């Protein structure tokens, strides 16, 4: 089985035992999320259970590309299960993290890990090639994620630093040697409390933050999984893969010798740490997940902020500036605390915004309506971030109310309706925090999130926003006109006909069938190519690539070419899309069993009732749009999502997906077409099979 290790580790935490699932049983699903959902469907008999129930099945999946030379597809790992975070229902959901753990798991001979049950007491799992040992975690429980990882290294005789690093990994010669430190996924005190804000952390800054899986692990008494592997990953065509990797570097990417980056490109960017805090000036390097063609995080001379990237780096900065007038050490130290306590960056970032709003409204504080004795005068300093995370970890003070996130806390406080309507709670879909791509402007982001289970965190169609914004801000033109860009992108959106109106973000088009097709395409592409095959969202899809003479990126050919070089299969891009559609339907079947109905699928009130205003001279939200019949990059800020219009859009979407328009449930013909008759049978027995349309 080229690419695959051949075995999936099935852990029974209750009995501290494990068994082996033959990967071949699930190979038809491809990898990553697709295999994860298929396993969840089979093993989690009651999909309505709470995420903290021992019967919750958590999957941690790689793909055949993990641990291989496929550029920016070697390092990601997909985590799935019933979450804790979304509201009003904690949907079956997903998270994903990078780094080097996926590669170590494959090296150890495993394609993935399934976690079931609940350990009687805190445990950490030690995986060394084919040996799996359950260890008492009493001395680790209560430690932060960094201390826990370093303590496990110490227990295994692994030294810190980058000195003499070769070591025999066990007493058995066959296990071989490595210089690589064990790869560990751990929870911190926030996860140990079982909080929905709990995240999974690997190394310093790789985080599976969304969904509350840290809290699920806490409920299972699972502190950490440690992985060491000394085996290899076979591929069908080694020469072909090496050559394809070289070609990708030479012909499809920018690098420091070639010049500056272009934000519209996914794959074609140059290496560039993505951090929104002021970059330290005393030295840093870019740092990448295993196999990435151009890394996106960094390590710094001080060691503070190592491996945090993107949104994480902005979590505390605004609050630091509000208190101290400019970014101070708190901007960086606050984020390190987030990683070490193991907390969801988005939830804390916007949760702090909500806390500030409550303070300014005069309803939070000692003796106030929301009685809390934390010293809020320190909000913006490092000590406050620690105090808040400690309160959540210990379920003390306001931390007790925040166990299930800020939306449920607002509900407890009797403030949910009011604060959701005014936007004091910037949580637009399923009670989940805003991602900086306002649903009212960036339609596919909000729509894609609300028809699914979570904030999509998929940047496929908003790289052009970055490029447009920065070019407009600085007074230069983007490389492609709106008409050229939309024509290029839709040409790659196979199997759909290349209809440019799928990228018309104008207000006139915002509830159209074309926008529904856009969202549907993105759901299917993501479910297989990004979350199944595990091509990293930062690089794929590659629509516009300015390193190419025709500016056309590698999406459409790149994904299947690399997949086939590894697996020896003959998959086409369209076949991958169909596999994505299949697993998207499987996921919807799970949500249906969890209780989803069409009526639940709507945004927070402020999204429907309040326009996102932005004046002519301010930062515009610029996306392709047809204005008076002509394509341009237009400012689409200034509107809300009309409720009736959204219902019209849902009709289009459910129709395209072949789901029951009344309920949003999958129908038998659609499921049968995808070979999912058994799922149709299950839905029918539960009285939740959608009616044929």
């Amino acid at each position: 089985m080229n690419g695959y290790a051949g075995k999936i580790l099935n852990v029974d935490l209750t009995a501290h035992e494990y068994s082996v699932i033959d990967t071949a049983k699930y190979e038809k699903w491809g990898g990553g999320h697709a295999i994860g959902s298929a396993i969840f469907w089979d093993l989690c008999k009651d999909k309505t259970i709470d995420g903290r129930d021992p019967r919750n099945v958590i999957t941690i999946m790689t793909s055949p590309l993990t641990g291989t030379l496929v550029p920016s597809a070697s390092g990601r790992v997909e985590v799935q299960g019933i979450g804790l975070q979304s509201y009003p229902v904690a949907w079956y959901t997903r998270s994903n993290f990078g780094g080097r753990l996926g590669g170590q798991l494959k090296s150890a001979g495993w394609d993935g890990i399934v976690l079931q049950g609940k350990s009687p007491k805190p445990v950490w799992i030690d995986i060394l090639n084919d040996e799996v040992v359950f260890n008492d975690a009493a001395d680790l429980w209560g430690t932060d994620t960094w201390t826990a990882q370093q303590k496990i290294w110490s227990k295994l005789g692994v030294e810190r630093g980058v000195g003499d690093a070769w070591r025999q990994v066990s007493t058995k010669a066959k296990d071989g040697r490595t210089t690589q430190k064990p790869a560990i996924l751990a929870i911190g005190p926030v996860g140990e409390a079982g909080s929905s804000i709990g995240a999974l952390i690997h190394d310093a800054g790789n985080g599976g933050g969304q969904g509350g899986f840290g809290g699920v692990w806490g409920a299972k008494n699972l502190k950490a999984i440690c992985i060491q592997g000394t085996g290899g990953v076979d591929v069908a065509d080694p020469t072909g893969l090496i050559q394809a990797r070289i070609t990708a570097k030479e012909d499809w990417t920018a690098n420091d010798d070639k010049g500056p980056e272009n934000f519209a490109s996914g794959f074609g960017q140059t290496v560039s740490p993505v951090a929104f805090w002021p970059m330290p000036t005393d030295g840093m390097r870019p740092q990448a997940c295993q196999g990435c063609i151009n890394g996106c995080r960094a390590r710094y001379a001080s060691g503070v902020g190592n491996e945090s990237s993107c949104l994480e780096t902005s979590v505390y900065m605004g609050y630091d500036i509000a208190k101290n007038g400019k970014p101070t050490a708190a901007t960086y130290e606050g984020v390190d605390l987030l990683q070490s306590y193991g907390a969801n960056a988005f939830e804390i970032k916007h949760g702090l915004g909500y806390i500030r709003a409550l303070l300014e409204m005069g309803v939070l504080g000692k003796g106030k309506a929301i009685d809390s004795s934390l010293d809020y005068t320190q909000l913006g300093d490092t000590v406050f971030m620690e105090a808040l995370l400690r309160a959540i970890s210990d379920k003390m003070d306001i931390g007790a109310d925040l166990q299930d996130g800020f939306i449920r806390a607002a509900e407890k406080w009797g403030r949910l309706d009011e604060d959701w309507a005014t936007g004091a709670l910037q949580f637009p879909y399923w009670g989940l925090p805003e991602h900086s791509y306002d649903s009212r402007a960036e339609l596919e982001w909000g729509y894609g999130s609300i028809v699914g289970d979570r904030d999509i965190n998929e940047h496929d169609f908003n790289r052009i926003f970055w490029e447009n914004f920065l070019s407009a801000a600085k007074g230069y033109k983007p490389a492609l006109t709106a008409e050229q860009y939309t024509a290029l992108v839709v040409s790659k959106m196979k199997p759909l006909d290349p209809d440019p109106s799928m990228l018309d973000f104008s207000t006139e088009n915002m509830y159209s069938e074309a926008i529904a097709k856009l969202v549907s395409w993105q759901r299917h592409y993501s479910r297989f190519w990004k979350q199944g095959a595990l091509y990293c969202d930062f690089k794929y899809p590659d629509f516009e690539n300015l390193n190419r003479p025709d500016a056309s990126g590698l999406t459409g050919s790149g994904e299947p070419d690399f997949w086939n070089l590894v697996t020896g299969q003959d998959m086409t891009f369209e076949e991958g899309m169909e596999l994505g559609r299949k697993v998207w339907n499987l996921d919807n079947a799970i949500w249906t069993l969890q209780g989803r109905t069409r009526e639940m699928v709507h945004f927070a009130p402020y999204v429907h009732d309040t326009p996102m205003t932005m004046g002519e001279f301010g930062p515009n939200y610029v996306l392709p749009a047809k204005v008076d019949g002509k394509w341009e990059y237009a400012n689409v800020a200034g509107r809300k999502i009309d409720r009736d219009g959204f219902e019209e859009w849902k009709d289009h979407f459910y129709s395209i997906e072949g789901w029951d328009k009344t309920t949003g449930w999958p129908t038998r013909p659609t499921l049968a077409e995808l070979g999912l008759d058994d799922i149709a049978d299950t839905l029918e027995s539960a009285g939740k099979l959608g009616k044929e349309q």
Partner: protein
Amino acid sequence: MSEQPKTDVREDGVTRRQFVKGLGAVSATAVFGGTILGGLLFPNGVMAIPASTGYLLVDMKKCQGCNTCMMACSLAHHGEQNLSLSRIQIVQDSWKGYPDDIGIEACRQCKDPKCVEACPTGAMHADADTGEVRLVDADKCIGCMQCVEACPHGSGRVIWNHEEGHAQKCDLCANTPFWDHKGGPGGTQACISVCPVNAIKYTDTLPGDDGYEVNLRGKGWAAIGLSTD
């Protein structure tokens, strides 16, 4: 060396200057039962090893820690991506401050190769057919691991292949059964070809002891906002 060769040009075409400059030396008493190819035995029992005609230089401050070089190396040589079989090693500690968070351990093709000296069978040798690159003849390797232990550099650059039970090391991609490409001195190396940030460089000039770590960060790196010193 106590004596110089009597002619200006050796039989293999190497000039006297190159030979004198590039000679390494190992004790001939370390050799038994086998021969060292390309060496020259001096009357005092010192075995002179010709210098390699190719070397890898690394910029440890530029490396992004993606391990792509390691995957390419093991794939080209062994047909599998296996970090434990890679002849170049990237060692990392996520919590250390830059630049102490990454070390690149690449074979130096030493002028005085301790690994060659340590080998009892001559399996580890300077290979004349491939530009005097220090190589392991796996068929002659008896698995004593003396070469592995002998490498004096941090994270010894001679690798133990636990799957096949022999030593192996960087051969500058002279022998890559799974990569259809000309390697070795004068050819291309997998690690250099794939490195996303060009942190590895090839040279045919023997570096001094401090010369294996180089600064490969230029204007383009500065343009991204990264440090060039």
